[in-house]
């Protein structure tokens, strides 16, 4: 039934659309002679109408027949079936009448109906102005002016209509397609679709429906008058409009309440859900822990105090820099806790990450206003504090309750043995990262890759990244102010003394870092440059040590990459952005890309050799200098990790460090048209799309 319904309804919609496209109206009173002008459309309409009426041999007939049959043999209470049956019958009669009227009105050539209110096609016409206000004064559409339609518009309707015919003639096809889900209906045996089922009560009903329907159509003016007398207050049309208007109002009201457009509001709801949902369940359904200890090691207390004080002060701080430094302290406090807990790898990584974060934050924040904007938040402050405390308490509850619920042995008890026997490493954390859970790590470095490209796309905007800057690229930039790379106080004489200009005359300052000359002298520090010069290579060597020793000692690709990153940070801080280019004359995108390619690619190699993805192998080698070497293939994976981390830090330095320097200098020197610092240039549509804005 539904399938058939869809076919004829869709056809009718399409037909109406086609008629509208051709004549510019859908008002039955104005249409005439369309059938002659659009024979195909009319045919499709006729077929669909016939199907809707339930005229054999169309799909609608087959379906309706089946429905009637089903109702005649229904299993519910007798009166329900009877009501349902007769509703269907009466409904079908009316359908027959209005369908005929629809088709007749739309396609036949005729004089206009005498002032009849148009209601039959109401559901088809949601938009055209109707109702008593619009008497059918408008002229009939001139059949001669009906435009021919593109095939594309007519074809689907015709196809669907014909499909209806086909399905009617070959009902088993439809049944086969539909049977699987018809069979899943909870009640009743699956109905069967047949075109001719013999002289059944259903057939009699169908005939009855058709006869009454045609009768109604024939006597349509009388019926319409009867309808009008029955139904004049309130006009269904007006009522419909009122309901819709009311609906729109309610929709707007509800949306205005739920969809506030405010980020803190959204977050507040989620956090409240966090504190109240799991929090309350925990309070209600679990018991207070019966065993507690103050600390594992007393030194933890000091670190925890530092963390608490720092984070509370950070939350209160109105100065950006102060807040950032305090957060950094909290981070280092975490590192101490890791170390005390017996997690040296974690502590090492945390310290390195915290350092990089701190530097990068300072690099960016020096461009932002020093204070957070002052906003009248006094009222909401208590709300935020309340939510914060509630979440904090809920988390403390989780931390107290969950560990004591454990009854099973953790899977990590198997780690030491298997890490050594199958992973070939003594540092279990590192083996976990590059072997046991290498799949995680592979995902993680792809996160880094995505984040790095994201940073670059936000800072460089249109161009993924400029060229790698070298010392030779440094240009003399003159400007009204001597705003140097470090954005210090304006120094009237600085412009004269800056980069390149004083190149030859200052030989003693140009030795240690080749790009040091590009900095304004008041920003240079010989000691810093010397220290950097000395330190840089030792740091690189240390990083390589961490990388290669990581499998058995604390270290590994992450730590090594971060150490190299910090070495680059130092070079950049000492020598400016050109020095960065000197230190790492390579594009970060290439490092990131190759790193991920290496790690994921190494993972695929074992597949080709008949092993499992990311499977490692232990290779025993005897090398001339090192003697006996046990090489685990995960080293290559770790090198990929290393490359990605270096690429990330380099990318961050080039964007949030060097590029922001450059944009800041340009801003200080006055804008150059078409440069990124011009906010408007950022509004050009980007390549991938945005489409047309």
């Amino acid at each position, binding site marked *: 039934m539904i399938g058939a319904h869809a076919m004829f309804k869709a056809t009718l919609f399409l037909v109406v659309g086609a008629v509208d496209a051709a004549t510019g109206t859908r008002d039955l009173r104005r249409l005439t002679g369309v059938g002659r002008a659009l024979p195909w459309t009319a045919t499709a309409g006729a077929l669909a109408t016939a199907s809707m009426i339930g005229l054999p041999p169309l799909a609608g007939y087959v379906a309706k027949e089946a429905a009637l049959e089903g109702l005649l043999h229904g299993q519910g209470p007798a009166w329900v079936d009877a009501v349902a049956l007769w509703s269907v019958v009466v409904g079908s009669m009316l359908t027959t009448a209005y369908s005929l009227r629809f088709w007749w009105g739309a396609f036949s050539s005729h004089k206009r109906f005498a002032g009849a209110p148009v209601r039959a096609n109401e559901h088809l016409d949601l938009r055209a102005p109707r109702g008593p206000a619009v008497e059918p004064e408008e002229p009939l559409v001139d059949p001669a002016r009906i435009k021919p339609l593109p095939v594309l518009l007519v074809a689907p309707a015709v196809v669907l209509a014909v499909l209806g015919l086909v399905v009617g003639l070959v009902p088993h096809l439809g049944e086969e397609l539909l049977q699987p889900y018809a069979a899943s209906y909870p009640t009743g045996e699956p109905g069967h679709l047949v075109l001719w089922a013999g002289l059944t009560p259903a057939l009699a009903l169908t005939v009855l429906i058709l006869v009454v329907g045609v009768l109604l159509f024939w006597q349509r003016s009388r019926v319409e008058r009867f309808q009008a007398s029955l139904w004049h207050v309130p006009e269904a049309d007006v009522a419909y409009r009122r309901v819709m208007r009311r609906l729109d109002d309610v929709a707007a009201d509800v949306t205005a309440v739920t969809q506030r457009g405010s980020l803190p509001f959204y977050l507040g709801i989620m956090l409240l859900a966090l504190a109240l949902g799991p929090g309350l369940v925990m309070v209600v359904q679990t018991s207070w822990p019966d065993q507690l200890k103050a600390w594992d090691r007393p030194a933890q207390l000091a670190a925890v105090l530092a963390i608490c004080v720092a984070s509370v002060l950070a939350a209160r701080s109105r100065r950006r820099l102060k807040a950032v430094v305090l957060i950094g302290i909290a981070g280092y406090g975490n590192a101490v806790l890791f170390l005390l807990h017996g997690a040296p790898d974690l502590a090492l990584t945390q310290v390195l990450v915290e350092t990089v974060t701190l530097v990068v934050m300072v690099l960016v924040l020096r461009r932002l206003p020093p204070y957070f904007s002052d906003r009248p938040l006094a009222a909401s402050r208590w709300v935020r504090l309340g939510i914060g405390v509630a979440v904090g308490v809920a988390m403390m509850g989780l931390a107290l309750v969950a560990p004591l619920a454990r009854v099973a042995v953790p899977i990590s008890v198997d780690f030491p043995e298997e890490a050594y026997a199958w992973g070939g490493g003594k540092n279990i954390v590192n083996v976990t990262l590059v072997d046991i*859970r290498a799949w995680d790590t592979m995902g993680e470095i792809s996160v880094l890759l995505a984040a790095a490209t994201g940073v670059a796309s936000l800072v460089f905007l249109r161009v993924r990244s400029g060229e790698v800057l070298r010392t030779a690229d440094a240009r003399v930039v003159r400007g009204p102010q001597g705003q140097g790379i470090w954005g210090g106080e304006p120094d009237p004489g600085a412009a004269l003394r800056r980069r390149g200009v004083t190149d030859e005359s200052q030989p003693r300052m140009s030795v240690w870092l080749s790009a040091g000359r590009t900095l304004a002298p008041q920003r240079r520090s010989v000691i810093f440059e010397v220290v950097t010069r000395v330190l840089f290579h030792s740091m690189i060597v240390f990083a390589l040590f961490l990388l290669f020793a990581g499998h058995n000692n604390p270290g590994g690709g992450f730590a090594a990459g971060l150490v190299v990153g910090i070495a680059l940070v130092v070079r950049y801080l000492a020598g400016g952005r050109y020095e960065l280019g000197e230190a790492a004359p390579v594009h970060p995108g290439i490092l990131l890309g190759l790193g991920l390619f290496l790690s994921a690619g190494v993972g695929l190699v074992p597949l080709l050799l008949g092993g499992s993805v990311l499977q490692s192998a232990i290779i025993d080698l005897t090398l001339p200098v090192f003697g006996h070497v046990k090489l685990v293939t995960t080293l290559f994976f770790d090198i990929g990790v290393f490359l990605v981390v270096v690429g990330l830090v380099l990318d961050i330095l080039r964007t949030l460090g060097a590029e922001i320097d450059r944009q800041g200098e340009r801003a200080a020197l006055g804008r150059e048209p078409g440069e990124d610092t011009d906010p408007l240039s950022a509004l050009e549509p980007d390549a991938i*799309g945005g489409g047309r804005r």
Partner: protein
Amino acid sequence: MDLVEVSKALVPLPVALPLVAAGLTLALWRHPRAQRIITATTLAVVLGVSVVLLVAADGGPVVVDVGEWAAPVGIDLIADRLSALMLTVSSFVMLCVLLYSLAQGVADGDDETPVAIYHPTFMVLAAGVFNAFLSGDLFNLYVGFEIFLAASYVLLTLGGTGERIRAGSIYVVVALLSSIIFLVAIAVTYAATGTVNLAQLSERFAEIDPGVATTIQLLLLLAFGIKAALFPLSAWLPDSYPTAPAPVTAVFAGLLTKVGVYAIIRTQTLLFPGGRLDDLLLWLALATMIVGILGAVAQNDIKRLLSFTLVSHIGFMIFGIALASEPGMAAAVFYVVHHITVQTTLFLVVGLVERRGGSTSLDRLGGLAKLAPGLAILFFVPAMNLAGIPPLSGFLGKLGLLEEGVAQGTPLTWALVVGSVVTSLLTLYAIVKAWNKAFWQTPPVEIPESVRLPRGMVGPATALVAFGVALTVVAGPLYAYTERAAATLLDGHTYVDAVFPDGSGRGQGVSSDVAEEGEGS
């Protein structure tokens, strides 16, 4: 080699190949042509792999212990019917979107570099989504989420316009919070059970204090609910999605929320059978449907309107999940498949509408039915599908849900049944409104007579429309497949038995054997 052996080798590919491609395309950022070939080929291969897995998974879940680390110690990837189905649909959809966006880039004459980061990021997005579908490990599921979230941050803020930064800020911060909640949930899970392997968790959650288990269930539901845009955690979505470029919005709308839904299905059925939260889920589903669709009615921009229908229809899927019966779950899975397709299609077509009509605001569009009849059909078919007009797939999914809601017959499920019908009607109302405005009204603003839509963009959109219709044609077999998928989801042991084959509590990886040998010698 038989199908099982082959498919075992194939399981990691949907994640690993896109990642290799991501690395390669980023390293080749100067060569847009090579990038295009690599990404398109990769997704096509993944689609092929998915289809094989779809067939293989019908014979039982395909499990791989990554790196031969036997399961609870290492990470296992598992393609059961649900995963394979999601994988297939999403890889097909992503391929279409990729082709569409390539054509868009070419048509806009921008062989320039932002495309250079588009490709790697898109690949990372794909890898993340596929990883989430395949992962058999809770923490790895988190990593999968982070992968595609990271990529989505980049794609959403592409170009860095003011509008996108604002929308991006809302999106990113909300997603970061949901990630933290997920992380907390994992920490608490490990604290309580000592494992993060899903199969093992399903055994261990039954053993611990039910109060703690319920707490964790709620935490996970909260984390995934934010991603799936479940009311009242849904408000971020309509604010952030519509500003992105059309193909990006299409992928986000089609896939990202469904990953959340997938995660809800997986965790609620596998980890927490017994339906402690089913009533809560039913309420949430009802609220999501109604509030979402009222939001859609209130909008007058097609993209926003569609975003609200997206939220609203998540309610249908949650409805099916909360029914916690095979027919309900089957209908929900079917609905997910339908909705991925139709929502992506609509956003792509709206991208075409935007290109043709110069706007997505209904106050500025009009008369497109005459100007671009082909486009009208492309919009009309999926729009009617979304509204649930029979016999399209949307209708079939809804029908399944209603049947089961009626069959369960509690007052709450009846409320949901009524709510679903109302939502369907309102969806139809909203969609018809958009249809009338954009395609039939006299254009309020002059719309150029002839704008050629690039064939490369129309092609994929048409393919998706056809795919949506095809879902109806193959509805019988597909529905049967989702019924089998639902059966395995709910029987509670197929998944676990597949991960730990001989009841030993360890996976097929050889690491445990090696370790034991080592101990013996």
